[in-house]
């Protein structure tokens, strides 16, 4: 299908060292269409960042085992060689990390760094071309063009993060991955950057994966959401379905931990227990020990149940064997 930008099937990421294996991502399955914005939500240990880094093969080769497939524009990212990946990175696929501000060289002006980056894929570009292109992007992220000639230390955290976003867009990638990109920023800046990103997406026909622990980021800027826990995708679907009517007990618990800004104050819930040891394999549902709706059958691993409207839930409550 021409519409599918990324199709991930049976994706597993395992960290291996001398003493043990850590199963960071298990059996992930999802696909993203053009123009989608998928929010991957999870807490610490959920595997969300690992998954993103693994898709781009940014994890150390020696200690990571990746299996499964991840078809991006017809090519399987898992099987590509480093050479072929280099051609894709930053041209078709780019990333903005949480503290991207730190990835800029403090001793070079922004313009110098952008020129370097652009020339990786476009060696013959002239300075004027690059400047024109980048200043256009700066406008999209609400920065004035004088930023182009400044040094990183002359800009604030919010401005630097916006510069990073602009840099990630410089080659008009088909897919942008933002890994907790707004977490380190203050509320006002975060709100505005999210707005800018959503607007920009429409203009640039871009697809986005947003990795975050903050449900409100997903609610305001994504159309699809995947909820991850301990390396597994527990629930997946359209934001308007999943957030209004969460099905998986973990999703419900997560939603109940976010107090509302207005209206009635519902008692704030927490999810008791703690994260399971990711170096072990589990027979049953990995969330069962902390689940208030756990049943006997949860001792067996629940399959991924497909519901209507592209929604999937990994929970016995919704089907599978009884």
């Amino acid at each position, binding site marked *: 299908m021409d519409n599918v930008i990324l199709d991930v099937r049976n994706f597993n990421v395992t960290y291996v060292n001398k003493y043990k294996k850590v199963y960071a991502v298990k059996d992930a399955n999802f696909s993203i269409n053009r123009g989608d914005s998928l929010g991957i939500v999870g807490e610490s240990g959920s595997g969300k960042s690992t998954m993103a880094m693994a898709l781009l093969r940014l994890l150390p080769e020696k200690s990571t085992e990746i299996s499964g497939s991840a078809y991006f524009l017809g090519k399987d990212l898992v099987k590509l060689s480093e050479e072929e990946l280099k051609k894709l990175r930053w041209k078709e696929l780019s990333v903005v990390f949480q503290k991207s501000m730190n990835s800029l060289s403090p001793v070079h002006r922004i313009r110098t760094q952008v020129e370097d980056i652009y020339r990786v894929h476009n060696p013959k570009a002239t300075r004027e071309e690059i400047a024109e292109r980048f200043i256009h992007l700066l406008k999209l992220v609400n920065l004035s063009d004088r930023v182009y000639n400044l040094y990183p230390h002359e800009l604030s955290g919010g401005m630097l993060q916006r510069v990073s976003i602009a840099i990630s867009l410089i080659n008009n990638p088909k897919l942008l991955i933002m890994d907790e990109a707004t977490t380190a920023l203050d509320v006002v800046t975060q709100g505005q950057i999210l707005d800018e990103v959503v607007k920009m997406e429409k203009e640039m026909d871009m697809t986005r994966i947003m990795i975050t622990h903050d449900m*409100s980021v997903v*609610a*305001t800027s994504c159309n699809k959401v995947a909820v991850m826990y301990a390396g597994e995708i527990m629930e997946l679907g359209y934001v*308007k379905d999943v*957030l*209004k009517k969460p099905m998986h007990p973990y999703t419900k*618990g997560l939603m109940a*931990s976010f107090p509302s*800004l207005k209206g009635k104050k519902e008692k704030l819930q927490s*999810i008791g227990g703690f994260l399971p040891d990711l170096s072990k394999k589990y027979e049953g549902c990995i969330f069962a020990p902390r689940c208030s709706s756990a049943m006997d059958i949860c001792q067996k691993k629940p399959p991924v149940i497909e519901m209507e409207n592209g929604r999937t839930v990994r929970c016995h409550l919704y089907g599978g064997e009884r």
Partner: protein
Amino acid sequence: MKNDSFICIDNVSMWYPAKGNRVFSGEKRYVKAVDGVSINMDRGEILGIIGESGCGKSTLGRILARLENPTGGDVYIEGESTGNLLKKDPKAFRRLVQIVFQNPYDSFTPRDTIEEILMRPLNIHSIGKDKDERKKIILEALESGGLHPAEEIARRYPHELSGGQLQRISILRAMLVEPKFVIADEPVSMLDVSVRAEIINMLLKLSREKDAAVIFISHDISLTRYISDKVAVMYLGRIVEYGEADEVISNPRHPYTQALISNCGSIDPDEIMDKIKVEGEPPTPINPGPGCYFASRCFKASKECFKEYPATHDVGGGHKVACDRLY
């Protein structure tokens, strides 16, 4: 002005000399981290202080706990200056005022077990007759904080416990001395979302059951609204808005508060907030002014706003706003 509230924060300021103090130009430069904050609190009241990084809320928290001394103004508990209380009887003061820090992973010395850590305050303040009684107190405290089995947790080292457990122990440690005033400085910012409720509920219990006044410092507005009775919004070292939590958050009157709240995402995808754009970046708190500190970024600012710092107006029911462009 000093009064007879339980806690009176009276025009507290914290000015740090800025680098490059230009003696020649005559004007000394200061980083005005906290610049004239006055609030009153009752027993058992939970006050939320919200604001973004750099607004001075953490500095204020440290001043209230007397980990730093203010350069101006003072804090009074039951009419007496905390500076004096600390000087007169440091141990008594430390029983009266406690603080819970943001980072639970660093709040305990890595070399002691939980039991040893909790024994320290009991020993210092001679709580409990002997070692056995103190051990009992510790185990009871752990149980009441939901840390089971208490015996086992007491034997563990901090690095063996999760962030949520550690922060609960941090609050329990503070509660052991029966404080009347607790400052919680971003107590859940470093914790996973699903364990925040435990901490919040513990703080609520602390204030309701022990009648302790609690200050909840946070940048998370919805969380602050949930726990607080009253809320104060800080910007560049000053309080720009103050009032009942629900009132301030559902009906913000100061332009900064309005912008802040409008940019807060809701988890309800149907709720579309019109985000107020705020131009520019928060300036540094070095010699801000002379007019309203927010004027340069304010969507309502007029020429007068740059001349003099606005007065604080009461818009009804104790809801106070430091803005002259309310109507």
